[in-house]
């Protein structure tokens, strides 16, 4: 299997509002291999979110080609795109987007309702519990989102993204609403998933979050201006230990 997970060839997204033409994504060519861990950075308006939406098959490009697992996405019907999102892609959002007044377990089950072929009730529950255990929430299966901390909520969202065993996890500012410690924990979780072979692509504008990734892509005005391997990669375990040490030091002094 030498196909890349993602192959973009001169990908374009042009919006027209009246006479004004907005080139949100203006000719992006990119390959992302299986098992990669990519941060896409850029200021707002750089086109990183638009690119992310197209990678997630929520939006169709107006030009160029996008091959996901070697399949040209432009040729798929809406139903086929839905199925692709359901089986191959896991989404993690900045605001978690969990259903309120719904247990963690039921939240994680959500994608399985739409899985085709049908996943029986018992399997749905089992797989949801398994995914929650994987993100360290095995003790909180039946808590509602308002009974969970921000970090825990984001972990439920990550469990939801994982429940269908996707090849690709797309995360849009996953630590944007979290404090430093929980951000490190969430990044550690992504690093674990990546070590297990899942390709992770993450949009962020924080350099210290991007530092956890293997590869950093920087965008500006709809184009990639930099694409390099992250030489100074951080690891969540080290960072957590460092944070513990500094806090201990602070409390002693």
């Amino acid at each position, binding site marked *: 299997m030498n196909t890349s997970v993602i192959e973009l060839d001169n990908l374009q997204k042009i919006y027209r509002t009246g006479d004004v033409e907005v080139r949100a994504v203006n000719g992006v060519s990119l390959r992302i291999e299986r098992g990669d861990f990519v941060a896409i950075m850029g200021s707002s308006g750089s086109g990183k979110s638009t690119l992310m939406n197209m990678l997630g098959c*929520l939006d169709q490009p107006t030009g160029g080609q996008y091959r996901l697992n070697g399949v040209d996405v432009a040729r798929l019907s809406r139903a086929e795109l839905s199925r692709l999102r359901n089986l191959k892609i896991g989404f993690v959002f900045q605001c978690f987007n969990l259903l309120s007044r719904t247990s963690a377990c039921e939240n994680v089950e959500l994608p399985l309702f739409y899985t085709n072929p049908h996943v029986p009730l018992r399997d749905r529950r089992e797989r949801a519990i398994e995914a929650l255990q994987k993100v360290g929430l095995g003790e909180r299966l039946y808590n509602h989102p308002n009974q969970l901390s921000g970090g825990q909520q984001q972990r439920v969202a990550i469990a939801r993204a994982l429940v269908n065993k996707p090849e690709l996890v797309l995360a849009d500012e996953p630590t944007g609403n979290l404090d430093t410690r929980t951000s490190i924990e969430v990044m550690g979780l992504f690093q674990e998933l990546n070590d297990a072979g899942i390709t992770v692509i993450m949009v962020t504008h924080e350099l210290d979050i991007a530092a956890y990734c293997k590869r950093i892509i920087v965008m500006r005005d709809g184009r990639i201006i930099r694409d390099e391997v992250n030489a100074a990669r951080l690891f969540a375990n080290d960072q957590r230990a460092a944070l513990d040490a500094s806090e201990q030091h602070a409390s002693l002094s």
Partner: protein
Amino acid sequence: MIQELTSPLLRVGLTAMIAFRALRRNKLRSTLTALGIIIGVASVVSIMALGRGTQKRIQDEVSSLGSNLLVIFSKSRRTSAAAAGSGQSGNLTLEDVKAIRREIRIVKALSPEVTLTAQAVANGRNWSTTIAGESHDYLQIRDWALTRGSMFTERELSTSARVAVIGSRTSRELFGPLNPVGQTVRIKNMPFTIIGQLKSKGAGMGGGDQDDRIVIPYTTAMRRLTGEKYPRLVTLQIHSDDLMSAAQEQITALLRQRHRLTEERNNDFEIVNQKEIADTVDNITNTLTFLLGGIAGLSLLVGGIGIMNIMLVSVTERTREIGTRIAVGAQPRDILLQFLIESITLCLLGGAIGIALGYGVSAGATMIPNFHPSVSIGSIVVAFGISFAVGVFFGFYPARKAAKMNPIAALRFE
């Protein structure tokens, strides 16, 4: 590469599960939303039940009159209202009655009637009641049974015997729980021997108490009590239902000939088919029931608009939920189906509660004596059908709005 593997039915089932969970998350709102439908269905169901009860009551009263009855009234030649129907104005004679009996074979039985109100004295008590002079066939015509004793005979009729059959109410007023048969009752100072007691029949069509009366031979009533020469009316029983109009025609012809009425003169008598009157009343009740039911149905419409309103609010409020669902693999039709099922479920649930309430109202109304409203299977089916239709009709627009959402915008919705 992609085949449709999940059966549509299973898909609907799964979506229904999602919809139920969503409704359960918002119990109070769901209940309030369904309230409009609850009230609408409850009023339709109970009005239909009460209407049915009224009809049943009318039918009972009709059958309590006896079957295949015609009544001949004499029409007064004079215009005075007081004279009309008093019997004094009579152009319907006992000879006419005899002629009808003799010549019209399809008349099974008949009874000329004179009535008066008088004090009945017996057992040291005094009671003002209706004295009805009738023939010996009267009880058969009215399909009326005796609890005690017997009816007077043709012989007692022809001899103007002073015998009486007493109604259950009159008997209670005069004799309490005692057996009145064999006792004497004085009417206008004339002693009558009570030979029978009538079974209770309840209120009549006009609302008067049929059980408060004393029945005596019409000959006795005319000769000894009133001195009238003419019966006030004649009740006839015809052999069968399909001969009713034939009997009406034959009697009309006979009476016109006997009264020597020429072509251009109107009848000086009137023949009334009691079943026809009852049918008319029945029809009016029916129309009223449907009219009221229709007005109650309007509240269903209002309830439906309420559902649409709340569903629209709900769709807007749950924009991010919809975006999330689409992101994790829901297709627009899944979203459409989910919201449609939510609104249909609300309506059916409201319908079920409404039917239960309507049933309760109808059950409460059975406490009214002689009134038996009943909820028909038909009205339950119709109520459910309408609830379903309201759910689909008023749920479709919000559901389509949800399904048409752009997932990217929906996910970022604040």
